């Protein structure tokens, strides 16, 4: 989505690269719990989370995301006009829900001339050395591993659990892990702080922000017809 990160036509950029304080709206719809959060960020002072709503939304991300954004603005006593940047999780996650967050971030940023930054959603789950797992459906998992400094070592990937070795400690949604991996995991979910941490380098250096393209990791399900089947025999 290269053009979404380009200079908006309708408004000038707000907030400069080095401005001490940036008000950030953070969004993620890569898991069944959508996250909307507000945080103040600066290169020196780091991140202060002002408000966060984590809404168990299942497949109703489109219905519930904008009300959640409205909610965190109210919680923090702020308005759309106060925002400087939007950070959104790019997945991996179930495609339909994932796109809701990404297009919402792109449209909000476009309408208000805000910077928009995409990050790997798994980077926003847990801290330090860990393996993050989320539900990829079809009996598969999305996963990535992180070193002691919290930096991503491998992934994100999509695999069958039986085909991979997950280095300890493994974190994610315990209910999902119990049902689908048949094991216990440390409880961790996407957080505003995690999204801001993952976006840190891009917040500090806007030139490093990549295009807003979801981490699909799978091709669309579609196979070209091989031969024309006789309709009258089908």
């Amino acid at each position, binding site marked *: 989505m290269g053009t979404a990160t380009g200079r908006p036509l309708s408004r000038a950029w707000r907030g400069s690269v080095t401005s001490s304080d940036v008000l950030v709206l953070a969004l993620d719809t890569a898991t069944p719990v959508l996250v909307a959060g507000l945080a103040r960020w600066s290169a020196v002072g780091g991140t202060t989370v002002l408000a966060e709503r984590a809404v168990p939304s299942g497949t109703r991300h489109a219905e519930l995301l904008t009300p959640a954004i409205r909610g965190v603005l109210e919680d923090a006593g702020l308005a759309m006009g106060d925002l400087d940047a939007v950070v959104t999780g790019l997945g991996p996650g179930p495609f339909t829900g994932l*796109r809701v967050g990404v297009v919402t971030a792109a449209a909000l940023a476009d309408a208000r001339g805000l910077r928009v930054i995409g990050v790997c959603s798994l980077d926003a789950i847990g801290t330090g050395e860990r393996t993050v797992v989320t539900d990829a459906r079809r009996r598969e998992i999305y996963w990535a591993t992180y070193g002691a400094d919290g930096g991503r070592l491998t992934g994100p990937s999509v695999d069958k659990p039986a085909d991979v070795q997950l280095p300890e400690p493994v974190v994610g949604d315990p209910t999902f892990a119990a049902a689908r991996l048949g094991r216990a995991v440390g409880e961790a979910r996407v957080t505003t702080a995690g999204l801001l941490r993952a976006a840190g380098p891009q917040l500090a250096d806007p030139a490093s922000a990549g295009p807003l393209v979801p981490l699909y990791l799978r091709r669309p399900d579609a196979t070209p017809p091989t031969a024309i089947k006789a309709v009258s025999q089908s």
Partner: protein
Amino acid sequence: MADQPLVIGFETSCDETGVGLVRGHTLLADALATSMAEHERFGGVVPEIASRAHLEAMVPTVHRALADAGATVDDVDAIAVTSGPGLTGALLVGVAAAKAYALALGKPLYGVNHLAAHVAVDELQHGPLAEPSIALLVSGGHSSLLLVPDLAQEVQSLGRTVDDAAGEAFDKVARVLGLPFPGGPPIDRAAREGDPRAIGFPRGLTGPRDAPYDFSFSGLKTAVARWVEARQRAGEDVPVADVAASFQEAVADVLTAKAVRACRDHGVDHLVLGGGVAANSRLRALAEERCAAAGIVLRVPSPRLCTDNGAMVAALGSRLVAAGVAPSSPDLGADSSLPIEVIRG
């Protein structure tokens, strides 16, 4: 005119990403991106490919529409979006984008019915709709006959296809004849050289005890395939032009006969055509002929506005705003099977 609200419309129910701008009944912009070429080798629209393409095209298409209208996003007074019926994953890209623009701009949001929008678009070309009107909507996804007492408040379904949509039949027959996808335009072209009376293909659901306003195109499609395969098995050449013309005649005959009957039965003297199949030249000609004979005023948008686009969504949004209809609830979502009676989702 300037004091009428500027309405932006988003359409992503199938494979077209459309963004239109309308003020009153005036069309200001109609930007479109299509993923049609990506679906061609699959012989039909692949939902996930369409959804990915919508996401890529969404914001750039908004920019194009605003530039075409010489407007900025701050000029927009209301936002309309197709919230159904259509492909869920595709619809959700437009719905989420529209909700975000509405939130960011602090403007009202109207989720609208895709089929009613196909009727509303005619107001951009031919002015206010005569009400009541009968509407015949035919596309790759829909085949419906509607009674429209008031486009902003009340639309009734009279009949619909019981199996394939008319456009699907065109796609499948094109495939049998070795013509490209989508099948409508190549069949229309091939039929010009053919004899529409060469082969008497069946007219579905036209018996005396059949539902008078429902359609069926599955039997027709199978009859064409059987006819063609019989020729091929006998080692004979298939007269593509005659098959195309005879198939197209069967479709146009049934559609127009039922639409004219609906007008007569309900004492309505205005018929509106819409949907991609309404771009078919034989359907347009036969509808004109039969409406003239029956004293019915026929309204058909230009082919460009018959297919899916954002302007039709903005047109219906404009109607709803003018009628004082309340905006959609903040928890608006997509409804892949939104009933036609629900004009504002």
